[in-house]
């Protein structure tokens, strides 16, 4: 049985942990607010761009743009977005596991990984997948630039038929409580499922299809990346906030238990001492 002093120390240490977790929760909540605001403002644009591209994608063929070329193959590149820091529940682990499983099911043994965020790198370092690039020292604000540079390279290689597919893997930010691990096929660009049947009507392109579609598609992909990046940022804070919230609650629970135990032990010790004194007095 631990001594009273040991229990007391334990209580102090749990209290300190609780202070840390609750502070982290506050910080994440504040950061989340800002990130969520940004993502909310970015959504309409992304949605519109999506509608524009999807309303066109039905009218386009691989001949118009190589990025629409859809073929089977195992040359897969992945852009994975994770966070740098842990203590955010299953945020990174779930995503990495989903990706590993999906790649395995598709029979891709060695995908080319471009990883943003330390946690993703740590996970995939132990696998067969080949990490083409990671950026452990980059600050989150630099991630976007990095990702765009990577994207340029991948798009060019896809167009040159050196890659068969490019996945974008990230946590989609649904709400504070849900972040959904998402694997999105970035390339080839597939007609979106929710495309409404637009009545066949002739559409005028200016200057013309070839010149227009290239930059438009490029912008579309970049925007997808941007949205994914915002989602990852907001999701990380949301996940950490939730995780830290439950950690704070658990610590509170633990302190309660320990206090109870402490008081019981104290009482037991006092009772024991009293009995000793009384029996000592009686024996005289």
């Amino acid at each position, binding site marked *: 049985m631990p001594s009273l002093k040991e229990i007391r120390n334990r209580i102090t240490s749990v209290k300190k942990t609780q202070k840390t977790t609750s502070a982290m929760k506050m910080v994440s909540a504040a950061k989340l607010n800002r990130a969520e605001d940004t993502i909310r403002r970015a959504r309409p644009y992304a949605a519109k761009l999506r509608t524009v591209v999807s309303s066109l994608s039905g009218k386009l063929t691989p001949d118009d743009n190589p990025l629409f070329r859809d073929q089977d193959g195992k040359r897969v590149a992945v852009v994975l977005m994770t966070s740098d820091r842990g203590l955010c529940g299953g945020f990174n682990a779930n995503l990495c596991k989903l990706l590993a499983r999906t790649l395995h099911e598709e029979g891709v043994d060695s995908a080319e990984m471009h990883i943003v965020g330390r946690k993703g790198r740590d996970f995939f370092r132990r696998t067969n997948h080949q990490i083409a690039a990671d950026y452990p020292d980059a600050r989150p604000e630099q991630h976007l630039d990095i990702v765009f540079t990577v994207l340029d390279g991948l798009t060019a290689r896809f167009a040159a038929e050196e890659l068969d597919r490019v996945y974008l893997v990230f946590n989609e930010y649904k709400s504070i409580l849900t972040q959904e691990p998402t694997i999105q096929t970035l390339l080839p660009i597939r007609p979106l499922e929710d495309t409404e049947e637009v009545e066949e009507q002739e559409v005028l392109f200016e*200057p013309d299809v070839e*010149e*227009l579609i290239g930059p438009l598609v490029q912008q579309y992909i970049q925007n997808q990346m941007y949205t994914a990046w915002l989602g990852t940022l907001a999701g990380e804070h949301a996940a950490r906030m939730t995780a830290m919230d439950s950690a704070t609650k658990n610590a509170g629970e633990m302190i309660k238990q320990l206090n109870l135990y402490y008081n019981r032990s104290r009482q037991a010790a006092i009772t024991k001492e009293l009995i000793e004194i009384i029996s000592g007095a009686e024996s005289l």
Partner: protein
Amino acid sequence: MDKLQLEVLTPGRILLETEADHVVLPGSMGEMGILPQHIPVVTMLNGGVLSYFVGQKQSYLAVQGGYAQVDNNRVTVLVERAAFAEEIDVVVAEQDEKDAAEHLKQLLSKSSSRATEEEYEVERKRAAAYEAQLLWAIARQSASQQK
């Protein structure tokens, strides 16, 4: 008569959502007037001035880098940057123009030296960024002159 639904969006915000009678887009092949019942169009936009009429009142926006889609009396403008003519600070825009022009000049005079491909790529990107800044400054100036 029918009205047009005009929307102007940037990655950061919805700038404008309004009904309009007539929209003039800075299309890549020249200005493009859109009236209700226009046939579907997708066009690239040049940096420049977008204007729209509500009744007799004409309003102006500076826009840069994007697309416009006209479909079913709905004009959707997706641009990298946009600002209302009233919001534009001409002094800032002029200063931006000068800065960008200065930077571009420096880059051009420097880049004649033999550089590696990578350096070249970096330079090219930087130049493109300054060029965008320059165009944006000019677009803002011409929009604010209109008001």
